């Protein structure tokens, strides 16, 4: 989406495609933060 609307975002953001935001589990988000991510955006 950000790409198609030509929105600028930092190169340090790494998208992971998921079927549906409903599928995101707390454990996945916590894993990312635990491994050193500064934050997690759930967008959909």
């Amino acid at each position, binding site marked *: 989406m950000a790409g198609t609307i030509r929105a600028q975002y930092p190169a340090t953001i790494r998208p992971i495609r998921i079927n549906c935001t*409903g599928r995101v589990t707390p454990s*996945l988000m916590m894993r990312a933060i635990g491994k050193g991510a500064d934050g997690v955006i759930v967008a959909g």
Partner: protein
Amino acid sequence: MLEAARASGLNLYTYSEIEDVSGFIGNFKVKIRKKARYVNNDCNGCGACFEVCPAYGYDEFNEGLNPRKAIYVAFTQAVPSIAQIDMTKCIKCGLCQGVCELNAIDFDQKDEIVDLEVGSIIVATGWDEYEPETGYLGYNDYPNVITQMKLERILAPNGPTVGHLVRPSDGKKPEKILFIQCVGSRDLSRQTYCSAGVCCMISIKNTKLIKQHYPEIDINVAYMDIRAAGKDYEEYFTASRKEGIKYIRTNVSRIFEDPETHNLKVILQNTLSNTGMKEFEYDMIVLSAAMVPAIGVEKIGRILKLETSQDGFFKEFHSRLNPIDTKIPGIVLAGVAQGPKSIAESIAQGRAAASSLARLLGKDKYRILLIRATVDNDKCAKCGLCELNCPYNAIQMTSESAVVDEILCRGCGSCLANCPSEAITLRYYREPQYEKQIDAILEEI
């Protein structure tokens, strides 16, 4: 419609509502409520009962412009031609029973529930005209401010005035008419969308129609932009201008009424000239109001579990590449149910909807993707959270475990995110796969 009623193998349920839909493509189960007409199917629409009925209601088909009897046919060409009784107006005098030669009137008739099994569903719920709120551009405050649909009925040969153009306050022929475009559409506080140029084209058509019958009537159109996009439309617009209809690019600032004559004074500024604010007087004003989703679509959307777009119309599979299908296989959209469009486009979409379903139902088999939720029976604690959270009603609890219907399931994964026992997995999108992705991305840091 008449052809459809006569065709064999085609069942028509008019004056009916859907109550419930379950199942999936090829095997939908539909519950239909056939509302009581209080007149049985023996009626041949002769109309003898209308003449004797002493009770009156407003004729909804004519936008409430004229009265009708409490026993009536919805409109002249209604299919099937069977009378119905408006029980809110009926006084149960029984005069109609006395004159009915076919003994068709049945005051004890009850709503009937019909259960059907169908393979697919086309949603063609159409639209309603946006009703401006009281006071907006004088609507409902001043009798001579009417909407486009009311004008349509006034101009119709089978309408309340049998085609004679009159204004509501005194029944006289108006000498000066103003059409106002984009009422309730292209408006950030009302409908933000443009109704696909339909209101522009209706106005152009009606101005031409009035001009043909009464060349002496002075017609102005207050518009933002005339959206005459489409085959022959621009030419039609040009023809209307050549006939002497004056188009004023403006936003109407104020309308007020002369209480004695019921004429309307309008203050507006032509933004294509430097003449400034000016006051004009008109005998009648026609508001060209937006197309909005038909009343009751929320209920149908809930029953069919269809999503709606921001504007309230049903959401298609893809707005550009597939505006016909919905996200639910076997349910397709036709016409304005999907978004504002003209008659020609609605017909095209209706045909496309039929062929989309013919392609699916022509085969005996339906292929599904295997991205589906699966339940580990040993881990499942039968808490029922998944059943509660499934947006597609694809999960059912049994005494053993939760059971996923592989056809209804769309593989969204809401169930597994909610499962406290981690008993559900999504094929091809398992937790360890995502974990690996997260790990790989964060290794770079």
